[in-house]
């Protein structure tokens, strides 16, 4: 996904000189092609995320379209006030990108677990939030950028995520994207954890539970009407995300349903409210932080049976 992002961005920057890639010393070998092709549209500010966002904001004030790229929580939480005041308050066209979101860098410890970012970015005015599930969704998100003004946040996985879609989805309306149809329950997923959702859907099919599986790469603005329609005829909505429960995608769905007065049963599946002190692979940490595949399967089955 990381390579897909950088390839799509490089193409865009070649066509539009306003696109500037700004990094805070992250992207070993990843940015080389971009730098070789467009050295004057690239800037490494050093290990200085507050400055990365401030510089990006200043450039955007001149009409540039900067992309501020870093890893994990560095481009978001480390410089949250710069994002809030410099970007969102001024509604500047800057795209903040975090690579390795969720538990992708699980072995590197809690400092690198990016599991509160959706909540924080979603809370900020003017901010748009995207979480692609595979390389094609990632390219589709990058293609939204030129026509979507103001601040944006993209939550990337790491790399080599399996391809989920056959063709590049159209994300222009923000509607969730169908992965496979089903009739008993609707499972809507954000990000690369969709692979676990597919595994769960397969297991549930063997138990006689038919899962309608979708991804929702556009988290804000949330197309709640499309989500409601996508769940039509099923028992309810299960959301799944590699993020803490509070303020994440499931929260967004619940808030929007409540505001509209649409009473659809929802089971939000997310990570525990815990700073994981253990290290391990992405799968290991999911298992130890509330998203073990067996538990996901049984909770979806119980939810479907109970509503």
């Amino acid at each position: 996904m990381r390579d897909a992002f950088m390839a799509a961005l490089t193409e865009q920057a070649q066509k539009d000189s306003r696109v500037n890639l700004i990094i805070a010393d992250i992207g070993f070998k990843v940015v080389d092609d971009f730098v070789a092709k467009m050295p004057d549209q690239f800037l490494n500010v050093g290990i200085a995320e507050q400055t990365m966002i401030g510089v990006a904001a200043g450039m955007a004030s001149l009409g540039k379209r900067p992309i501020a790229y870093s890893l994990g929580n560095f481009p978001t939480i480390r410089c949250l006030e710069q994002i809030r005041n410099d970007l969102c308050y001024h509604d500047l066209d800057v795209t903040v990108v975090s690579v390795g979101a969720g538990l992708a860098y699980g072995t590197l410890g809690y400092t690198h677990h990016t599991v509160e970012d959706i909540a924080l970015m979603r809370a900020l005015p003017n901010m748009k939030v995207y979480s692609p599930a595979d390389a094609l969704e990632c390219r589709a998100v990058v293609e939204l950028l030129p026509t979507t003004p103001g601040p944006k946040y993209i939550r990337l996985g790491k790399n080599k995520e399996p391809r989920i879609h056959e063709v590049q989805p159209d994300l222009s309306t923000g509607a969730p994207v169908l992965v496979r149809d089903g009739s008993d329950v609707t499972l809507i997923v954000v990000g690369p954890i969709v692979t676990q959702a597919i595994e769960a859907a397969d297991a549930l099919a063997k138990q006689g539970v038919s899962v309608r599986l979708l991804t929702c790469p556009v988290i804000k603005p949330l197309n709640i009407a499309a989500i409601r329609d996508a769940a039509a005829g099923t028992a309810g909505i299960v959301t799944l995300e590699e993020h803490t429960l509070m303020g994440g995608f499931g929260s967004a769905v619940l808030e929007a349903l409540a505001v509209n007065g649409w009473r659809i049963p929802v089971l939000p599946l997310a990570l525990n409210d815990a700073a994981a002190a253990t290290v391990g692979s992405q799968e290991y940490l999911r298992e130890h932080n509330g998203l073990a595949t067996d538990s996901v399967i049984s909770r979806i089955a119980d939810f479907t049976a109970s509503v």
Partner: protein
Amino acid sequence: MVSGAGASHIGSALSVIDIVSVLYGRVANVAPDRVSDPDRDIILISKGHSASGIYAVLGNAGYFPLEWLDRYCVDGAPLGGHVTAHGIPGVEFSTGALGHALPYGAGIAISSKRDGNPRKVFVVLSDGECQEGSNWEAAMLASQHRLGNLTAIIDRNRLQILAATEEISSLEPFADKWAAFGWEVVEVDGHDHDALEAAIGGEHDRPRVVIANTTKGKGVDFMENSVPWHTNSPNAEQAADAIAQLEALREEVAR
């Protein structure tokens, strides 16, 4: 203005007001009828809490109707307690949280240099604000890119909210710190307009910092060098006294 509002930072406003007057009036390529001119210079007020002083300068320079000043901090009024670019001609960037404008200014300076645009960027900071690490991140970057189009002017009034800067987290040797970061350093009397003009103006081939030595609460005897007058707001009697003192100063300057 600040008395009616019950919101102040009057000490900071009075220490910075000469710097800002010189910047808008004498040095920068700006004018009230060219606030959207793409070739104008960019003035950024990082110490957003000095809003009352900035707005007094902008109002008197014709950037917006003087009557706006009478409604400072009134419900729904354009002018609030921290400078905002939202709807205020002449203000480029909304601040209030410290340590934001120097990185922003560096971004403008880098892009301007790359684009071959001759615009200059001036950033007005407080001295206490230099305790924010983001300024030093930006200082390093500005030096790395030899941003001769970037000038920082520091209102060195030596006081912050609770005490003297040197008692809390010392800035000295202040000039040496900036020099060590690769900046050209000029020290000046921050209330001497001619000296300020000479220090801030002119060409340089790397970023310049002007350390403007000022008096917090300048011009009002009971506010000068007073810690409480960072946050205090004058009552009607104090306001009348302060205005009388400032008017006397104005007449003295006019003579």
